[in-house]
Structure formats: C-alpha cells, structure tokens
C-alpha cells in the first residue's frame, strides 16, 4: 500500500466495511459440501480414466513388443531354415552337376567302348594286338572312371540324404511338393532297378530310391561296363542294348531333374507363403479416417489496449467439440519411407455465452390465505448461448517412416498442411464489447478484407500410427495426431491473434492397393 492521503469517504467505508463480519453462513455449507463431494467423485473418475488410459497404452505397447519378439524369433528360425535349405539346395545342385558330369563321362566311355567294339568287329585279324592293347587301355580308363563314379555314388548318397531332408521338411510344409515328388518316384520304371540288380549293382544304389534314376545310370554304366568287359570283351550287341537302356534311363533322369526343379520352385513358393504376415514393404495405400479432436485455442492481444478484449473473448468462449475426417494416399518405399498426401476437413465448435440483457422478475409474497403481502422486484441477467464453428479444408503433405512388425504397422509421420479454405459461422463480441459481430464480417464493405482470414496458410502436422492388419488388403488405423496452425485465423486488422492447436486420434481403414 502506498502512502497516501485518505479521502474522508474512503475512510468511512473502510472503517465500517473492512472487517465487516456478517456472522456464520451455515445455510451455505451444504452447497459447498455437495460440490466438494462431486469434485472428489469427478477427480476419481478422471483418475480412473487416466489409469485406464495408461493401462491400455501399456497393454498395447506390451502386446506390440511381445509380437515383435515373437516375430524376431520366428524370423530367426525361418532364416536358419532358409539358410539350411539353401545350403542343401546347393548340395543338391552340386550333386546334380556331378551326376550330370558322371553321366556324360559314362556316355563318353560307352561311346568309346562302342567304337572299340565296332573296331574289333571289323579288324580282328590284323590289329588284334593293338585292339587288345587299346581294349586294355580302355579297361584301365573304365576302372579309373569307376573309381570316379564310386565317388559320385558316395556323393549321390549325400544327395539322397539331402533329398530326404528336403522331403522331410517338405512333408511338414508342402503337401503339394510331396505329391509331385512321390509321383515322380512312382512314375519311374521299376524295370531299371531290376536290370541294375541283375548286373550286380551295389545295394547302396538301390537303397537310394529317391535318386535312383540318376544314381543308377552312373555307376551301373561303369560297373556294367566293367563286368561285361571282363566276361566278354566283344559282346557288342549286348552292350548296344545296354546303352540304349541307359539312354532311356538318362531320359528318365532328365524328367526327374525337371521334377526336382518343380519341387525347388514349390519349396520357394511355400517359403514365401510362410511369411504371409510380412507384407511387402513397398506399397501404395489409401486411408479413410475420422478423428475426434481436442482443440486448444490461444488468444493473445496485439496491443495493451486489446488485453481486456482478449480476456473477454477468452472468458466468454469455450471449447465445445472438434473433429476431422479425410482421405489420404500413401506410398511406402522398400526401406519404409512413407510419403503421404490427401485431403482433410476439420471442424472446431465453440460455445459462446454472452450477456443479452436483463429482465425484472416480480415475486409476490402471499400469506396463508393467499393475500399478497409483499412484492419483490429482482433483476436477472439473461445469458444467451450460441455455437460458433470454424471449418478448415487442408491438404496434408507428410513424410514418415513405417515399421512393419508382425500384425502391426507402426508409423511416425510429420509434415505440413496447406490450407485451401477456412469458413466461419457464428458471432463474437466486438472489440468495444458493446455488441456482437459476425465472424464473416468485413472490415470495410469497399475492400474485401475480413476480421477472420479465409486462408490461414500452413500448419504443422505430426502423427504416430498404430495400425493393425485385418487381412492382406485392409488395415485398421489408430493414429494419434497433432495439428498446429502457424498463422492466426484472425486477420491483421483484428486486435487479437487467435490460434489453434489440435490433438486427435484418427480412426479408420487403410486399403492396400499392392
């Protein structure tokens, strides 16, 4: 308090009223007590809502993390399986190459032998010795080839085991692959086996039934050559027939190779099918959404003289509701980078309570008999209420990162919104607080300037998407988002700045084109 000379009237009023005690106001306690109880209940409700919200958030995040771990462990297992399958496939391919090479070797040996037979038939007397030497050389070659072929047989054993492994894996995963495989085996002519058995083929070959057609071709060629050469060097006709049979076997082996390719293809397809939860990263989506929002309005005075008006506006208007809906197109690259755009229509509603005058209420007090004994006149303020609406049409342009985890797609997005149009419906206090003015009111009728801007420029956008895959094409969107208009909605001639920050949660559907 400043030192000042007290006015006589001030002194009178201060003396009489400063410490005025009007006695206990017991009749008011009940109302206070009720209000306190109500506040306590609403506090509990708010606390419960917060608790529930926090609990739900933890549940969703926990579920997401659990799914992430599950997905990672599955991916690891799948990766290991794929690695094993790939190495087995390589072994198979290697074995096939070796078998093919063996078959070629056998074929060349057979041709050599055939040539030799022809030679010996035509030149028995003259070049018998040479022929014999050549034959011996051939026999040595064949023995050497047989040694090679024995190695091939061993590899064929690996091949067979590998095939068995693939078969076992396939039987777990791929019935279709099995059917092809079994069918190939079943179609293979059993006569070949019998023929080979009759030629003292080692049982090792016949045990490897899966690759029998290929395996039998190779060693049997060599072994048979060896046997027949040692028993009868010049039984050419028999050899020719045998070679025909071997060629036939090679043809069968060729079919078998085709079947093997089919199996490989099918295995790959089914490997892909196993990862059906993993949607391809590069995709194109369209979203349709609706977002209930909370709007936070900031009113600031541009000058000191407008402070009172700003406070008056802030006090008389309160948030009633806000929402937005729209369409959004998204392109997501292979590395998860998302580009989004679309159109967003937002709406903010505010309750405006204003003083519309006062009325005099007449209260007539009556006695028990109904005769008027007193008349009381009471002035009552008339407070009217109306709803003001602000509507915005924006084009959001956002970049983001999308993380595809199991059945969920998480995304972080940020960008700008370009305002196309803003419309207003309602009334507010005029800057002199003496009347109400329309939100669409022009400053001057001559120029086309308004108190509220028709285009409010850019807004900052940010969102966190938590999307759930309903199936391969549709996702359920739940995306908390934030929008802040950088410019005020009020024009330069308005004595105050009025800005909006909106928080909401977009709920909708996403359709994945590809």
């Amino acid at each position, binding site marked *: 308090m400043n030192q000042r000379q007290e006015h006589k009237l001030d002194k*009178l009023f201060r003396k009489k*009223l400063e410490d005025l005690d*009007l006695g*206990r106001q017991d009749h008011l306690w009940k109302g*206070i007590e009720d209000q306190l109880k109500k506040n306590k209940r609403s506090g509990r409700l708010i606390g419960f809502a917060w608790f529930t919200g926090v609990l739900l958030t933890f549940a969703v995040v926990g579920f997401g993390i659990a799914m992430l771990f599950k997905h990672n462990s599955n991916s690891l297992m799948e990766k290991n399986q794929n690695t094993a399958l790939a190495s087995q496939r390589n072994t198979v391919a290697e074995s096939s190459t070796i078998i093919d090479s063996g078959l070629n070797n056998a074929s060349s040996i057979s041709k050599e032998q055939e040539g030799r037979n022809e030679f010996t038939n035509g030149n028995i007397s003259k070049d018998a010795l040479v022929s014999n030497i050549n034959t011996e050389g051939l026999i040595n070659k064949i023995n050497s080839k047989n040694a090679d072929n024995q190695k091939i047989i061993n590899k064929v054993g690996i091949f067979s085991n590998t095939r068995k492994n693939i078969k076992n894996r396939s039987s777990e995963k791929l019935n279709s692959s099995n059917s092809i495989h079994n069918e190939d085996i079943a179609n293979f002519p059993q006569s070949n086996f019998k023929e080979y058995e009759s030629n003292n083929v080692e049982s090792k070959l016949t045990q490897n039934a899966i690759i029998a057609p290929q395996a039998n071709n190779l060693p049997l060629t060599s072994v048979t050559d060896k046997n027949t050469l040692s028993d009868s060097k010049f039984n050419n006709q028999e050899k020719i027939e045998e070679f025909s049979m071997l060629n036939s076997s090679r043809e069968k082996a060729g079919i078998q190779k085709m079947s093997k390719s089919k199996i490989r293809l099918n295995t790959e397809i089914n490997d892909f099918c196993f990862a059906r939860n993993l949607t391809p990263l590069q995709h194109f989506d369209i979203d349709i959404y609706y977002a209930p929002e909370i709007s936070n309005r900031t009113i600031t005075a541009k000058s000191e003289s407008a402070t009172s008006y700003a406070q008056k506006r802030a*006090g008389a208007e309160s948030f009633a509701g806000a929402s937005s809906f729209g369409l959004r197109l998204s392109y997501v690259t292979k590395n998860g980078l998302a580009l989004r755009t679309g159109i967003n229509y937002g709406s903010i509603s505010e309750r405006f309570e204003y003083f519309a005058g006062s009325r005099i209420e007449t209260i007539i007090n009556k006695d028990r008999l109904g005769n008027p004994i007193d008349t009381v006149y009471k002035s009552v303020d008339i407070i009217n209420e109306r709803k003001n609406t602000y509507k915005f049409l924006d084009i959001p342009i956002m970049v983001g990162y999308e993380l595809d985890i199991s059945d969920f797609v998480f995304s972080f997005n940020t960008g700008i919104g370009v305002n196309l149009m803003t419309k207003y419906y309602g009334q507010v206090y005029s800057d002199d607080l003496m009347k109400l003015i329309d939100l669409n009111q022009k400053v001057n009728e001559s120029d086309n300037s308004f108190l509220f801007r028709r285009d409010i420029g850019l807004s900052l956008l940010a969102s966190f998407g938590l999307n759930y895959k309903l199936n391969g094409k549709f996702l359920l969107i739940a995306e908390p988002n934030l929008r802040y208009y950088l410019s005020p909605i009020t024009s330069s001639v308005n004595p105050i700045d009025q800005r909006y920050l909106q928080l909401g949660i977009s709920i909708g559907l996403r359709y994945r084109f590809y």
Partner: protein
Amino acid sequence: MDAMPYMHVNDIIQGCLAGDTSCQKQLFDRLSGKMMGVCMRYSRDKMEAEDLLQECFIKVYLNLATYKNDGPFELWVRRIIINTSIKRYHKMSYQNESPSSDFLPERQTSASAHDGILYEELLGLVNELPDGYRVVFNLYAIEGFSHKEIGELLNIKEATSRSQLVKARMVLQEKITKSQKIVI
C-alpha cells in the same frame, strides 16, 4: 459444532488437507462471516454474494495445498475472493442496469452526519454502484491497492481507475447526502 475443541488454524488446514470434513466445516464456520462481508462488497446483491462465497470456499479447499503459510490465512482467502470477483467482472458483461432491491438495507436513523451510518446502509450504497465503479472503489478505498495495481488487475489504464474512483465517490456522496436528507 460448537462443542468441538478450539483448533489452531494450522491444525484445521492440516485436517482439511487430509480430507477431514469436520475441519472443512470448522474452517468455513470460522471464516464465512468475514468473507461474506468481503463478498457482499464486490457483489450486487446477497444472492450473488452467497454464490461468490461458495465458489471461493470450494477454491480454497481445492487449492489449500498451495497455501505456503507465508502470511495470514485469512488474507490468503480474502485474496482468492478478490481475484474471483475480478474474474467474474471480466467474464460477465454487465450493463449499467439498475440493481435489485432485495438486499437494500432498511433506512435507519443516523445519529450524526457520517459516523452514524450503519454498515448495512453503506453496503447497500456500494452494491448500488455500477460494477466498474464498485470494483475500483473496493480495491482502492477498502483493500488499499494503488491505481497502478488496480490498472494491472483490471487491465485498465491508471487514469481510468482514477476517473472511476472519482465517479464512484461522487455517486456515493450524493446518495449518502440524499439518504440523510430523507432521514432527517
């Protein structure tokens, strides 16, 4: 309630903070009379004053934890009432309508020119002032705020505060004179 033992205000506050309803009631009983007097000065009628008192006591109970014991508790409550009144003044766009007469005190005979005027009469005169005058007069004459402080509180210019005070005094002086003429 009268049978309750006398408690120091700090103990009552602690009880209120603990959610003890009896302490809340005791605090209300102890302060409601004086605070009603303050509310009456800032209001146009009794009904409005009662409404203000209830609102302020609810604020007191809800914000009791913010009281730092750095001054008399009564002053803290009084300050809440003044702030709430100012907020109400800003919120409601009162026009200079004629006040209601349901709380106008009965005109009583005064012994002397000024000192004999009863508080009810003075309170009635304050209630009859237009809102702006009343708030400025209360803040300056009774609470002891300067015009600068009033300007900051009400978001008005210092000169405006001065002129409103002068006008308030004129109105009050005129009404007192008129009232005494009638009585005499």
